[in-house]
């Protein structure tokens, strides 16, 4: 139980996927202008990473490992992730327009999000069992959502302040990310 808690805290705060591993940055720059869209993106990412990790974990251990097809892992994982996203978007479009309005529009963007494929591959590489996979696949996107929310709150204020012209837009966002990375780096001795 203690190891699971350590795994969770490490994935959310200490080895945060955006600030230490640099993954999930592409939507970071585009979606993080308002806090509401940041929360929507975070919710969608959490759902996709958790669901896709479950499927890829099951597929790897039940099919690829058994039949000696480990070299197919990359192609299989990316196809599973993409199929899962398409299927989810279809279901949401049909059965819940309200949900589609808040987070459905972000779903196609998550297919090529580095973070999803990273978590799927990392679960295999670190040799997690099922419980550890569940904890890790929930912790990583929670960390992503946390940082994305903080980032969007800062950017909302930054848009109203006097930024030097060459840095307006994405470059100043990178400076903010640098300062946040420094701040989160101070949590390194937590567990």
């Amino acid at each position: 139980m203690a190891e699971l808690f350590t795994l969770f805290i490490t994935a959310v705060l200490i080895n945060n996927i955006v600030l230490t591993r640099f993954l999930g940055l592409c939507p970071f720059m585009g979606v993080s202008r308002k806090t509401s869209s940041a929360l929507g993106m975070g919710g969608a990412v959490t759902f996709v990473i958790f669901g896709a990790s479950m499927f890829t974990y099951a597929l790897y251990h039940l099919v690829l490992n058994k039949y000696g097809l480990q070299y197919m892992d990359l192609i299989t994982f990316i196809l599973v992730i993409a199929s899962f996203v398409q299927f989810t978007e279809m279901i949401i479009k049909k059965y819940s327009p309200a949900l589609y309005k808040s987070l459905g529009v972000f779903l196609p963007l998550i297919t090529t999000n580095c973070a999803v494929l990273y978590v799927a591959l990392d679960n295999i590489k670190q040799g997690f069992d099922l419980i550890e996979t569940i904890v890790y696949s929930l912790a990583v996107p929670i960390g992503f959502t946390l940082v994305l929310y903080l980032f969007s709150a800062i950017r909302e204020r930054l848009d109203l302040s006097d930024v030097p012209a060459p840095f307006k837009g994405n470059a100043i966002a990178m400076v903010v990310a640098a300062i946040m990375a420094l701040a989160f780096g101070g949590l390194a001795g937590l567990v």
Partner: protein
Amino acid sequence: MPGLLFLAAMGGLYAALYYFNHKTPIPAGCEVEEVSCHGCSISSCGKHPSQNYTLEVKQ
């Protein structure tokens, strides 16, 4: 040989799901969604101009 069959099966599944998703119209009430990610170059995103993000309204 089994690898190729598996690849074809997975690819076919993805292509089929993608096609069905493309055909499902966006629900009513989402037409006035303004695209807040101008100038993003990620062309696989559903909102990118090249994806013909048409707002088909479900009657």
